[in-house]
């Protein structure tokens, strides 16, 4: 167990008194195996109780502690101090408004998530007595990777197109729509397409690929979005060139 003093530079913002954010420096005695979240917890407990940030599970499942660490979108609970040298700069997730300190306003993402209907829409409702909806292992594997999304919004902070065009529905929400579209038990694709195949949907994506590079769960949103583009293109040709074939 070795200890080291870590210099943290944290972006602070108090909406009641500040007109803009400023950096505050903390010298934090840290254990070598700590993550950035441990350092923040130490600051809050022993140095400055006014520091605000979100966290919950400390094990990369809840998706609450996303923040910019040296300019990279990271989960603070997965960012090991031993991988950093010098001053570590901690800021709230990019592209989201700052509520207070490291806490962001995430309403935009939540609204978009609701719009794409990220839940199963079966063709017809069945009574419980009718039994389960069966699915083969191959059918499960088809979309399983996308179920790993923890809604941490790191992909939104990494996506420059979302930063430039805030109405873009964005990587995670479109990926989750794709996850249900690819599910053999689902029949809601047409409803979701109304959102994700619109101009605000997948067509704002220019395949930068940053979303997949920062995703802590290796969901690969960039891949999902390209697949949505290809499928929406096939749709378009079917709808416009084969008028009889209304899906």
């Amino acid at each position, binding site marked *: 167990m070795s200890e080291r003093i870590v210099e943290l530079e944290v972006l602070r913002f108090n909406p009641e008194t500040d007109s803009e954010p400023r950096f505050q420096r903390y010298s934090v005695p840290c254990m070598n195996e700590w993550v950035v979240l441990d350092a923040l917890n130490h600051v809050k407990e022993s140095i400055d109780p006014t520091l605000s940030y979100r966290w919950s599970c400390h094990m990369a499942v809840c998706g609450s502690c996303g923040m910019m660490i040296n300019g990279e979108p990271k989960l603070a609970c997965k960012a090991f101090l031993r991988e950093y040298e010098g001053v570590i700069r901690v800021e709230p997730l990019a592209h989201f408004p700052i509520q207070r300190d490291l806490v962001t306003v995430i309403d935009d993402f939540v609204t978009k998530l609701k719009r794409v209907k990220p839940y199963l829409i079966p063709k017809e409702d069945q009574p419980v007595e009718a039994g389960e909806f069966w699915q083969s292992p191959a059918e499960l594997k088809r979309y399983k990777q996308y179920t790993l999304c923890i809604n941490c919004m790191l992909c939104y902070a990494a996506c*420059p197109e979302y930063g*430039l065009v805030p109405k873009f529905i964005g990587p995670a929400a479109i990926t989750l729509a794709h996850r249900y579209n690819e599910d053999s038990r689902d029949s809601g694709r047409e409803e979701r*397409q*109304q*959102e994700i*195949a*619109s*101009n*605000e*949907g997948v*067509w704002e994506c*220019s395949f930068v690929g940053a979303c997949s590079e920062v995703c802590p769960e290796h969901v690969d949103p960039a891949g999902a979005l390209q697949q949505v*583009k*290809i499928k*929406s*293109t096939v*749709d*378009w*040709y079917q709808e416009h060139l084969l008028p009889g074939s209304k899906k």
Partner: protein
Amino acid sequence: MAKSNKPIVWGLFAAGGTVTAFLTPVLLLLTLLPAFGVMPGLLSYDNLRGFAGHWFGRLLVFGILFLMLWHAAHRLRVTLHDFGVRADGLVAVAVYLAAAAGTVATGYFLLRI
């Protein structure tokens, strides 16, 4: 929300990107070789006229150039947006018209061979 009509331009962009990825480097190699003392037979006037004068050669050259131009045009539209140009409507009209003009020129010259 209405579905977008972007699939038309994106589909051509993707097809063009694929064709370009496979063919552009070797086509450049072909026209670079004479500078290094290797003259591909196809590049002689008679052979190339024979190729570009045949209906199949014409169709091939026309298709490749059409897709290449659309690929470049659509990506240029996106790139200009990334560089901060916000007049997307105007940019779209300009780049697609340029691609269309190039395609028409290709057809015109091919028919005169």
